[in-house]
């Protein structure tokens, strides 16, 4: 029988929530890496027991953790178990935690500056890994979206990381600026029909696409309209909060921008707004039903000044028409005195026949629906604030 494993990253550790395919009774494991911020945890679609975790701390920096047994044991892949902990020269190994922008003449790009909050220019400075995206075909290949914004790739199971510098160096970098959470590359989508095509999104720069495996990139923000920047239709500078795709239609992407929900039907060449009858179109998460590519989910947040759900009601909104027409999903969710937020990487869908939807809140709840959003129940109620949610179906 199939099972489901939910990986929840929180402000104070990672949690693993496991169930059978009914998704009614859950086992909770954790906290793993107690006390550390876990921005993201995700499993390989090729080998579900291969998990990658971003563990970080403002004091101690960035750690990459890996499990090869579904989260029972963990190690830093730069120093695998059973291997020497030092190089032949006697230097300590821990290369898996080392994210260095590539400025080499051969493959790199000069380390330029980006716009800071006050409008001045500031050099790129690595802070943390926001998102880990394992390859669709190789468990040892994984991408890392980082702050300050750049994309890294490991092809050795996370032991070493190399920047795909064509993104940071493609030319518009000085116009990029941090959002309230930092200048983060938070979304990485791999095209299942074309291994050379990758979509990413940066707050606040916008969405970008490569068609050559990461060598060159182009901004894909035509159609975005952002009133809070000097030129509302600029090529870059938009605060994209998240993007999502159904793998069966890789040219169709959905976007939750700072304000506005949008879609593209041509791989990002043109976007148009689909906010429709949403009560507010500010928000962070957006995701797509696993089997119905025109069914999408958002959690509207009151405003950029009040990062909690509107009217004290936690409502997931679903559109079955690819946008514009939205219905509130409330069964099992608190409908009074609720003031939580749902952050950009904190929603996921599973691929079981009856599609499961999952999301985590700033109040520490992780909710699950085993029927595409019609009914909800909390898996856990009292975790630390949830930063990310991913789900795996286990055969």
């Amino acid at each position, binding site marked *: 029988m199939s099972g489901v494993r939910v990986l929840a990253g929180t402000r104070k550790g990672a949690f693993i929530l496991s169930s059978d395919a009914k998704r009614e009774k859950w086992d909770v494991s954790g906290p793993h890496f107690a006390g*550390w911020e876990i921005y993201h945890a995700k499993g390989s679609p090729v080998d579900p027991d291969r998990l990658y975790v971003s563990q970080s*701390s403002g*004091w101690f920096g960035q*750690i990459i953790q890996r499990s090869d047994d579904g989260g029972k044991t963990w190690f830093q892949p730069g120093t695998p178990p059973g291997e020497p*902990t030092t190089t032949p020269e006697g230097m300590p*190994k*821990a290369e898996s*935690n080392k994210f260095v922008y590539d400025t080499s003449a051969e493959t790199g790009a000069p380390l330029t500056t980006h716009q800071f909050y006050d409008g001045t220019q500031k050099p790129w400075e690595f802070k943390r890994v926001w998102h880990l995206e394992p390859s669709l075909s190789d468990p040892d290949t994984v991408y890392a979206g980082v702050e300050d914004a750049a994309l890294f790739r490991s092809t050795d199971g996370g032991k070493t990381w190399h920047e795909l510098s064509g993104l940071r160096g493609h030319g518009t970098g000085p116009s990029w600026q941090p959002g309230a959470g930092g200048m983060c590359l938070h979304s990485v989508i791999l095209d299942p029909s074309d291994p050379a095509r990758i979509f990413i999104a940066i707050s606040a720069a916008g969405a970008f696409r490569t068609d050559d495996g990461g060598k060159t990139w182009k901004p894909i923000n035509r159609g975005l309209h952002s009133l809070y920047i000097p030129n509302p239709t600029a090529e870059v500078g938009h605060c994209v909060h998240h993007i999502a795709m159904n793998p069966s239609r890789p040219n169709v992407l959905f976007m939750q921008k700072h304000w506005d929900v949008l879609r593209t039907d041509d791989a990002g060449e043109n976007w148009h707004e689909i906010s429709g009858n949403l009560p507010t179109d500010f928000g962070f998460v957006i995701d797509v039903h696993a089997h119905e590519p025109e069914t999408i989910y958002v959690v509207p947040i009151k405003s950029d000044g009040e990062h909690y759900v509107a009217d004290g009601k936690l409502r997931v909104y679903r559109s079955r028409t690819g946008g514009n027409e939205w219905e509130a999903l409330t069964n099992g969710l608190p409908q009074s005195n609720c003031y939580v937020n749902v952050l950009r990487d904190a929603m996921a869908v599973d691929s079981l026949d009856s599609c499961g939807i999952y999301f985590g809140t700033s109040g520490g709840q992780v909710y699950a629906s085993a029927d595409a959003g019609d009914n909800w129940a909390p898996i856990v109620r009292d975790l630390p604030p949830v930063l990310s949610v991913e789900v795996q179906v286990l055969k």
Partner: protein
Amino acid sequence: MIRVTLPYHLRTLARVDDEVTLDVQGEVTLRSVLDALETQYPMLRGTIRDHVTGERRPFLRFFACEEDLSHQSPDTPLPDAVANGTEPLVVLGAIAGG
């Protein structure tokens, strides 16, 4: 034998319960002690000193014998009491966190 006291989160990362002890060859300085620490506990590399610059991370401080050693040269000899193991070198988070 050199004694080093680590902050809680670095003890859990290094999987040690208490202060660590190190053999340090040559002169006992911040640099030689941290080099030995990172050799014995490679998972700590980058958590105390930046991976690239080797500089102390901004929110960490070094103390020994009730002295703040955070801003001295990493090649300055540490106090005799640290070098002979009477007192530990303390690596401390600079501010408390929730």
